[in-house]
Structures are given as C-alpha cells and as structure tokens.
C-alpha cells in the first residue's frame, strides 16, 4: 500500500508519490430528471419535500473514499478525540500542515496532528504525556487518510 508516501531526504520535505496524472478535466454536468413529469397539476408538496437530517451528509463528503476507525487511548485528548470515539477518515484529501491524520508507523495505525513547518516533519499528539514522533532520515511516514470528523455516542441510560 502506498497511498500517500512521504520520505525524508536531505531536508525533511513532504511530497506525494510521483503523480504523472493529468489535471482533472472540467467535469461536465449531467442533470438527471428526478421527477416524473405529468400532464396534470404538479404536486404542490413536491418542491417543499424535506428529507430530514442525515448525519452521513454532514460527516461524509466523499463516500467511496471515507472510512471509520475506532480510537484507542488518549493521545489526542486535547483535540477532543477520546477513547472509544469513531473517527471519520477521508483518503481523497491531501494531508496538509495542521491536519489531524491517520498514519501508519511501523505497520501500526496512529492518529496525530501533522506538523510540517520550516523543514520539520512530525506527528504530534495532543496530550503532554506523549512525545511527538519526529521523522528523521530514513523513516517513512505514510499517511493513510485525513481525519475529517469524530463521532461520540453516550451510553444510553433508559
């Protein structure tokens, strides 16, 4: 797997795997007709039909690229991410400085804030009890996806 592969060279810089990919073309829009057209009076309710709120719409921007993970531990407690929370991870986004990312370090998943500034590359926890993972020569940082949301459900007391 090599979704977003960062390798530190002389100076720690982040670069994506070489993309010999053309720019996205301007998408052409096809509008599908979702309503049946009938000859009689249009239903006055059709225009005002409300679908209700769907948390998927709120949390998931790109469905085929979105995955959920369960959080273990308290290393991101300062970012409001606690043990047992579900995090929403989007693989389509390019990780930027200050994003919370899901990375793979030594074959294991880790959730941290990506620090990438003035030549330094680190994965920083948001809990003073932990130290940052600093990327030095020869260590690979593989970002699996960018964390775009967190979901928590409180125990139901009936």
């Amino acid at each position, binding site marked *: *797997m*090599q*979704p*977003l592969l960062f390798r530190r060279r002389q100076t720690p810089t982040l670069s994506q795997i070489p*993309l*010999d*990919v*053309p720019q*996205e*073309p*301007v998408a*052409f829009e*096809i509008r*599908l*007709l*979702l*309503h*049946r057209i009938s000859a009689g009076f249009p239903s006055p309710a059709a225009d005002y039909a409300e679908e209700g709120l769907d948390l998927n719409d709120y949390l998931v921007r*790109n*469905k*085929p*690229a979105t*995955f*959920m*993970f*369960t*959080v*273990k*531990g308290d*290393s991101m407690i300062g970012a409001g991410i606690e043990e047992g929370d*579900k*995090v929403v991870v989007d*693989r*389509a986004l390019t990780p930027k400085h200050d994003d919370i990312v*899901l990375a*793979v370090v030594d*074959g*294991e*998943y*880790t*959730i941290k804030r990506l620090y990438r500034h003035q030549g330094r590359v680190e994965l920083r926890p948001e809990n003073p009890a932990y130290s940052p993972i600093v990327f030095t020569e020869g260590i690979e940082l*593989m970002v*699996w996806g960018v964390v775009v949301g967190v979901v928590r459900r409180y125990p139901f007391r009936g």
Partner: protein
Amino acid sequence: MAAAPQFALVDVNNFYVSCERVFKPCLENTPLVVLSNNDGCAVARSNEVKALGVKMGMPWFKMKDLARQHGIQAYSSNYALYGDMSNRVTSILRDYSPDLEVYSIDESFLRIETVAHLYGGAIPMGQQMRHRIKQWTGLPVCVGIGPTKTLAKFANHLAKKNDVFNGVCDLHAMTRPERLEWMWGVEVGEVWGVGSRIRKRLAGMGIDTVLDLRNASPKQMRAQFGVVIERTCNELRGISCLELEDVMPPKQQIMSSRSFGATVETIEELRESVASYLASAAEKLRRQNSVAGAVYVFVLTNRFKEDEPQYNAGITVPMDDATDDTLALTSAALRGLAAIFRPGFRYKKTGVMLTLLSDKGARQATLFDDPVARAKSEKLMAAMDAINREFGRGTLRSGASGVAQRWAMRAGNRSPRYTTRWDELPVVS
C-alpha cells in the same frame, strides 16, 4: 459519425488479498492467501504466494507445509469487506463513464470513446482512474483498453503482467506490428472465453498463441467450435461483436437478467423480476453444488433512448455467510434493489448476479453450526427444486420477503468486517 467503440476493462489486482492489505498495512509484501468458505482452498493469492507455486484452488491442507516454511498468512473469505470495497470501486468508475457494466466483483467494463478526450486521451484517463482508485480505496487496479471487449481484456492481461505499461495498456496506442508481437507472446488460453477444453483442441490445430487465434479463419472456427469462438476470433481482429451488456459466460458467477418487453417503472414490478431471476440463478447454483457469498443486483434504463432520463445503477450485497438458500439470497437482492431504485425512470432491464462462489461440498461443522436449521433449509430447497422440476419453473417461489435460515460457515481466520460493522472497525491509537 459516431466514434469507434473504445472499451476499458478495469480490474483490481489480487482483489481479496488487496482488500485485506488495505486494513493491515503490515501484510504488505507478506505472502498471503484467502481461502474459500469453510477454509477449503485458495481463492486468492498474493504475488509472493503465486511465486511459490501455489495454484488457484489448491486445498489448504496441501499447502500447510509450504505455509509454515515461508510464513504464508491465510485468511478466511470476508464477503462483507469484499462487497463493500467492490461497491466503492464501482462508484468511482461510474463518475468516469455512464456506460459501465460490472462484469464481476472485481472487474468492470467501461465505454470511453466519448469521454477519453476530456482527460487528454485513453491512457491518461486510465492512469487517472488507477491513481484515484488507489488513493481513495487503497486498491491497486490495472486498466486494459481496446476496440473490443475481448481486446480490452487482453490489454488488461498485458498491463498486469508487464511493468512497462505502468498498469495501463491501450492497444490503440500501439503500432500494428507491436500489437501482433504482444499477441504472439501470450498463450491462447489467456483469451477471454477460451477454456481449457477448447485450448487443448486449438493446440491440436496448431493454434497456440493469441496471434494464432487472431489469424485463424473465423469461418473455420465457427465450423469447429461454434459461434462463440468465431466471435472471439473477430473480436481479436478488432471487430466489436460484444456490446456492453452482452456477457460471455462468466466463470465465477451466475448471472440471470433479461430486458423487459415493455418498460417498467415501479419498484413492485422490479421486485417481482428480481425475485424470479434470483430463483432461477439460485437453482443453478444448487445444481452445480456451489454457495454464493454475495449478490449483485442492477437496474438499467434504455440508453438508446437518448431523450429519456437515464439511470444505471447496481450494488453488491454481501451475505453474512455463503449460502445457496433462495430465501436468504432473495432477501439480500431485494434489499439491494431498494437501495438503488429511483422512481421516475423507465427501466428496461434488471438482473442479478450470484458472485463470490465457492464449492459447497466440503462444508464442515463448526461450533456455531446449527445442524437443525441447516437440515431444514436444505430439505426446503431440495423440495422446492423438485416441485419446480415437476410442475415447471416458478411453481413454487419464495414470498418476496422471506426470512432466511442461516448457518455459520467455517471461517476460522476471517478478518474483521472493517467497513460494515460498528463493532469491527479498525482500531487506531
């Protein structure tokens, strides 16, 4: 003038193995096999395992020594995961071309002649699809492009086996001598639709390579083997005979679909068709003594009626356990139909495909096995098939929402259902 057809076949490399690796990065570069239901034999192999000489379908007990020696990891089939990952790939591909046919759980054909120029040509388009699927889902794919479905499939084979193509092979981009040379280099058994029996007979006639078959006389092929091989021969010459929805008899799935005489608009009518196609597919499944791990269901409008709104959708619904039970499969197919149905379209065609098939034979009892339920289901299915044989197909049918009996299959080492169960999500610390 309409542009000449251009087909792309997009195929996930070592699909089941690749799905497992997405969620277990430490398995990258580890030899890995995925076993059929009840852990019988290898149904997917990583490249490392292929290199060790493990063949498709090799029983697990026969490779145990090899596994110990080389540290081969074995996983049970995880239908929920494969079904979900397959839907992700398909939905990404649908953004590239509205003309798409899901050929199997890990392969789709696309017509691209009207859209390729938006990406600067077929190869850049293929590279972008490949890169996007890799980034968004973690799955590696290869893309084969050609003027016919058979040639797209051949190009896909070349892309997979030869690094020089960087995962995307377009036969249009080659000179004629180059194309023929590649055909000369590949054994005829790799051609779509040429099975081992036909391959042996072809060998007897001195037809050993793809090039030999391409150069054979279609007339003679028809006389010897019938219209299927004649068509293959023509397709290898670049004469497109198979339209998108025309399907070669697929090997690892059972398809049942039909176009409607008149268009259909309501979900009730579609439900009825889906249930009846499923019944005949499931009967065939039981006849060949297989079980299915997932059902693919699709609906299509008539794409030749350009003035009508178009809709083309399909979804793979994984089963909890591989089964041959009509009721369980029907209920899965109808759930899938409900998820993809949109009102307001005139549907021309619907169908089902039973996929992730494996042999039923060696099902073994497990701790969670419910022999009473299983015996009940088997008796019921046997009785159903007997009555339908006696009194004609469809005499006895499932009520469309039948509740299924399930039994546990042996899945000693199935990975978590990472993408479909809240309590089995991957864990991050």
